[in-house]
Structures are given as structure tokens and as C-alpha cells.
């Protein structure tokens, strides 16, 4: 399947393989029919494969992309039946009970699937049987269809590997001379169970339909979107707002049912001339309340150019976060809601990342005593304490002309002549040796609080290891 997907994007003639780096070696991940005919197989190292088949073409594999593609394929397969699950990393399993007649019987159904997949450029191996085990065996080892109740007849000649057994069990069974499913079926069960445990017999029973096995269908992921198509184009701001309000209601109802809140909303407005404009709304908190979301669209919608009119509105929540129902109580009133809405509104103007808050951090280094985090993705934290006086404003260290370990009696800073009236200190702060910091290359710092006759109270430090004096902050 992965190589088919790669070839669909960019077709190649001749042998082709996808390589995946495993344990520091490039191995073949998936190959096409031409490469298989050339004698290559999966898990072969790429260097060996090149030696066997010099004209092999290859590309790196993309397992995540393949997973996503299988999701798409799974969704497509729900056209045949509602119960579709994954089988391994590259297969689908469909429970077609009660839906085969819609396509004219089982054989016609298989033909239809195959025809559509081939047209899309995929080689598929299809198996159909009474049980999941039988279908698996048929799909992987000799395609075909088992007639109802005739599973044993269809599977008799298939190798025991078709029973979804571990590799060493298969080898052991072959060493005993049990090569096919039919031979395994005719062997007395008790000695087999004693020797191999219940596994082979369980798999055999599942394949022959004597033991039930369920398909776990995957739930359809919830879709948070709504659409409104208008018979006549609209262009006035109020009309678009009213349309948005109408879309928000079902969307928010669905969000509430899933106990989720929208974090990013995308409103796409399609104009009569097929141009589309998108208004993106990023919220400071997950929300599912239409009355609160609607006013936040105000600024974005005012910027929309309606042209000859808008005839379709589509609203989708592109980022959704869990938002459990909360008990309303008088103890913790929701007084931050207004502030969050304000953050959202200002975020549409200056960018949501540019609204920040301070969080305490554990460090004695003045510059690292706090963290700056975007307000929309953090919660306010308490626990601020300043055991010693700290300046109100800190800046990059500004050198001043002074010498010696004692604070200077007078100095010039920012073109001001200052006279020291009182110096308090020193407070020694050592660099955090486990962090590489350019600013702290000069080593230890002895901090002094300098009160000047002129009134300004400055935070100076001296670096004894590479002598120098700097101003780093100003007190209140």
C-alpha cells in the first residue's frame, strides 16, 4: 500500500521500493510488483537489494503519511458497510453482514472493490469468508472467496502461516510436517494443545468459524463544522453577523455535546464570484458559548470585502480542546471570562502570542527569575517572593567606569553624574554552571544596591573574576 501511494504521487516504471531506516540500516519497507518479480522482499537491506537489482528506484518511506492515508481509505470503505476496522498496518477489515446484497452479492461486491481500487492505482488483495480469520487467510495467502459454510474447503490447501500465528510456531508446525491448514485440522487436538498451547487451535477455530471474533469498528471522529448556503447573496455586515450566529448555534451545540470547546474558529465566506475569504478567530480560552463567540467575530468580519455578495458561509472549529461541564458555584465565580474575551479581541489585533503573563521560575539569576508565557496558553500562578529587594526594572548590563571591589564613590551612567550616598551589599550570585549563558561568562557577580544623592536607586554589580562594574537595574 505505501509504495502504491508513493507511485500515485509520482509514477515510476520498473522496480520500485520505499526504504525505511531501521536500526541504522536502510531496509526495504514496501515494494511494487516489478520489484517482487526481481526477487526482492521486504526487510531486505537496501544495499543487498541494489546488488540484486541494479535498476531499482527508491524513495524514503513516510509511515505517518501512510497512516493518514489508511484513515482516508477506511472512510472510503464505509460506502460498503458501516463496520470498518484496521487490520495490521496496511489492511482494512469490513463486516459486510447484511450489506452484500446491496451490491449484487458477495462476488459482485469484491469485483466492485477491486475495480475501484485498481482505477485509483492500488493493488489490493481481497479475501472474503464467514469469519475474520478465514478472510485474513484468503487475503494474505491466495485470494478468493469462501462460500458460506465452506470455509474448510477454501482454506484446506493454504499454509499454516495463514492462521495469524507467530513465526516460531509456524516453523515448529512445519517441522512436525503440518504444512497446510487441512493437515492441522486432521491432527488430534489434545497433543497439539499440550505442545503449542491454546493459540494455534484458537486461531484455527476462529478461521473456521467455530469461535466468534469481533471487528472493532472505529468511531467516526466528530466533525465540528457547519455550512449555510444562501439563495441570494448578502453583503451587509449585520446580515453576515446574523448568518454567523445561525451557524454558531449548531456548532456550539455539537461542541457542548462532546464536552469540547473551540480554540480556533475558521469562518469561510464564499463570494458570488467564487473568491473565498477566511476569517480566523483564535480564542484565548476554549469556548462553546455562541453568545460569547459571536461578538469576537466583529473585528474580523468588518475587514471582509463582500464584493458582489456572499452566498455561502462555512464555519469550522479547526482546533478543539476538551472543555468539561463545570458546576456553577458561588465559591469560584467566573470573573475571568471578561478578561479572556478581552485577550481574544486584542489578540485579533496584535496577535495572541503578544499578550503575555509572568510565571515564577526557580532561579537566582535575576534575568531568569521569571518566565514570560503567552496568556492564552497559561494559567496565572502565585508563589512570587523576593527575599531580598529586587529592582523594578532590569535591563542589559551597562558598563560604567569604576575600579576595585568597593562600589565607586561617584560614577557616570547614561550621561548623568551620580554620587553614591549609601551602598548596600554585596549580594553574591554565582552563575548557573549547568546552563551555558553568554551574559554570565564573566563569572561571579557581587550585587550592590546603590542609593545616590540624586535620588536614583540603582542595582550595580561587580565581577571579581574579570574586574568591571555594570548597572543592571533600577529600584523603585
Amino acid at each position, binding site marked *: 500500500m505505501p509504495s502504491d501511494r508513493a507511485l500515485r504521487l509520482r509514477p515510476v516504471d520498473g522496480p520500485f521500493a520505499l526504504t525505511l531506516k531501521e536500526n541504522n540500516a536502510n531496509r526495504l519497507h514496501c515494494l511494487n510488483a516489478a520489484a517482487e518479480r526481481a526477487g526482492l522482499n521486504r526487510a531486505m537491506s537496501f544495499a543487498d537489494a541494489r546488488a540484486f537489482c541494479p535498476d531499482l528506484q527508491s524513495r524514503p518511506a513516510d509511515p505517518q503519511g501512510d497512516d493518514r492515508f489508511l484513515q482516508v481509505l477506511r472512510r472510503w470503505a464505509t460506502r460498503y458497510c458501516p463496520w470498518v476496522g484496521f487490520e495490521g498496518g496496511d489492511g482494512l477489515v469490513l463486516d459486510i453482514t447484511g450489506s452484500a446484497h446491496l451490491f449484487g452479492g458477495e462476488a459482485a461486491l469484491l469485483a466492485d472493490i477491486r475495480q475501484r481500487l485498481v482505477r485509483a492505482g492500488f493493488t489490493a488483495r481481497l479475501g472474503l469468508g464467514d469469519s475474520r480469520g478465514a478472510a485474513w487467510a484468503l487475503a494474505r495467502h491466495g485470494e478468493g472467496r469462501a462460500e458460506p459454510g465452506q470455509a474448510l474447503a477454501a482454506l484446506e490447501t493454504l499454509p499454516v502461516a495463514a492462521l495469524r500465528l507467530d513465526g516460531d510456531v509456524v516453523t515448529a508446525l512445519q517441522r512436525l510436517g503440518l504444512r497446510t491448514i487441512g493437515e492441522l485440522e486432521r491432527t488430534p487436538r489434545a497433543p497439539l494443545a499440550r505442545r503449542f498451547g491454546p493459540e494455534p487451535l484458537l486461531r484455527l477455530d476462529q478461521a473456521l468459524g467455530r469461535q466468534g471474533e469481533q471487528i472493532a469498528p472505529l468511531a467516526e471522529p466528530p466533525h465540528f463544522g457547519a455550512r449555510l448556503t444562501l439563495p441570494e447573496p448578502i453583503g451587509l455586515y449585520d446580515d453576515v453577523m446574523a448568518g454567523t450566529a445561525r451557524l454558531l448555534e449548531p456548532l456550539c451545540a455539537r461542541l457542548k455535546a462532546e464536552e469540547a470547546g473551540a480554540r480556533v474558529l475558521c469562518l469561510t465566506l464564499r463570494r458570488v464570484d467564487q473568491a473565498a475569504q477566511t476569517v480566523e478567530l483564535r480564542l484565548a480560552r476554549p469556548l462553546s458559548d455562541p453568545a460569547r463567540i459571536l461578538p469576537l467575530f466583529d473585528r474580523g468580519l468588518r475587514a471582509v470585502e463582500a464584493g458582489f455578495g456572499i452566498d455561502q458561509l462555512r464555519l469550522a472549529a479547526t482546533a478543539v480542546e476538551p472543555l468539561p461541564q463545570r458546576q456553577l458555584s458561588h465559591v469560584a465565580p467566573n470573573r475571568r471570562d471578561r478578561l479572556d474575551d*478581552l485577550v481574544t479581541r486584542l489578540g485579533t489585533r496584535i496577535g495572541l502570542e503578544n499578550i503575555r*503573563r*509572568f510565571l515564577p521560575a526557580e532561579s537566582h539569576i535575576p534575568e531568569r527569575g521569571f518566565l514570560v508565557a503567552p496568556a492564552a496558553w497559561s494559567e496565572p500562578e*502565585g508563589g512570587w517572593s523576593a527575599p531580598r529587594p529586587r*529592582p*523594578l526594572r532590569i*535591563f542589559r548590563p551597562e558598563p560604567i567606569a569604576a575600579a576595585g571591589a568597593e562600589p565607586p564613590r561617584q560614577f557616570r551612567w547614561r550621561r548623568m553624574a551620580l554620587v553614591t550616598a549609601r551602598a548596600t551589599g554585596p549580594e553574591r550570585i554565582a552563575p548557573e554552571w549547568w546552563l551555558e549563558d553568554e551574559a554570565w561568562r564573566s563569572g561571579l557577580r557581587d550585587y550592590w544596591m546603590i542609593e545616590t544623592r540624586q535620588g536614583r536607586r540603582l542595582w550595580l554589580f561587580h565581577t571579581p573574576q574579570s574586574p568591571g562594574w555594570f548597572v543592571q537595574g533600577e529600584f*523603585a
Partner: protein
Amino acid sequence: MSSDFAASFPLCPARVHEAFGPAALAFAAIAVAQARGDVFWIREGWRSGALNPVGLSDFLDPASLLVAEVRDQSEGLAVMEEALRDGASRIVVAELSQPLGLTPGRRLQLAAKAGRSIGLCLIGEGMGSNAAETRWRCTPVFDAAATPADSTLHRWELIKNKSGTSGAWHVRWDRAARRLNLVSPVAERPGSAAAPG
């Protein structure tokens, strides 16, 4: 004199005020602390000299502070107007770098009135707008008598007041009680005649 101060210092609500001078930041911190509520602090991203929340924690709880970093002054004023009009935060502080015209000043005044919140602009000397309710010149003062731990003596001069008289006061911030104390002027105290005001 102290009654005068009480009439103008906890900044009059629903108006926009201005402060400048070397201690304007301390003035803002104290004004914010007195307003008790969430604060929006607007500053231009390119300016050096960051607020130090650890130092600020002597005045207020930094958890109630939201900082908006804007590109330039016009964006900052737009943000300030919106924040003032919304009224979700009790006080909005903006550090301005350019003189404020009468029209933007008046807009801010109207927004503050609509949102019932206080606006405070930290401006450079001589950059004030005529629309401001009050304008304060704040300078730190060396206090020979104080211990280093609480040397927070400031001289606040009210040089413009639309609804009252102007004046000058010496104040000190009490870190432990988070309280503003009015001090009798330095010049009137014995032994401190040498200290410049």
C-alpha cells in the same frame, strides 16, 4: 496638605492620567496596587528594560498582570483604547514613546469613561496630552534616615490637575503592609536640609 493628596491620589476612576520622571514606573506600580484588580500593561516590544515581576511583587501580585507587546505607538494606543472601553481590567498602563496628540488623548478619555476603568500613560518629559486628567512628575529622593530595606522615598509633584489643585508630596511605600505612607517634606525635617528635593 494631606487632605489634598487624598483627593487626587488614588487616581480618579474612569479617567486617563499621566506620569513621567525617573520614578514613573514606581508611581505606576503603586497606582496599580491601589486599584486592586487585573492590570493590562502595554509596552512596545522593541524597548529595552523589561519589567521585573520579582521586583514588582513588592507592590502587587504579578499574577494579575497581563503584558501586551505592541509594534508601535499607534497600535499601543488602539489596544489601550479597546482595553479601556472593555473595562475588564481595572487599570490599563501604557508606556508611550512619542508625544500624545489631543485627539488620541480625548479618545482614550472617552474610552475610559465608557469602560469605567483607569488609564495611566507613562510618558517622556514634556510629551503630555492636554486631555489628561492629571499629570505627575515623579522623582526618587535619597532618604538618609531610612534603612536600606525600605528606602522608597519619592517626591510626587502634581503639575496638572483638571479638577483640583496641584501640589507636591513626599511618599514612601511600605512593602510589608503594601501601603502608601505620606511623609512630611524633607526640607521641614531637622538635619536633612542638604538633601536636594
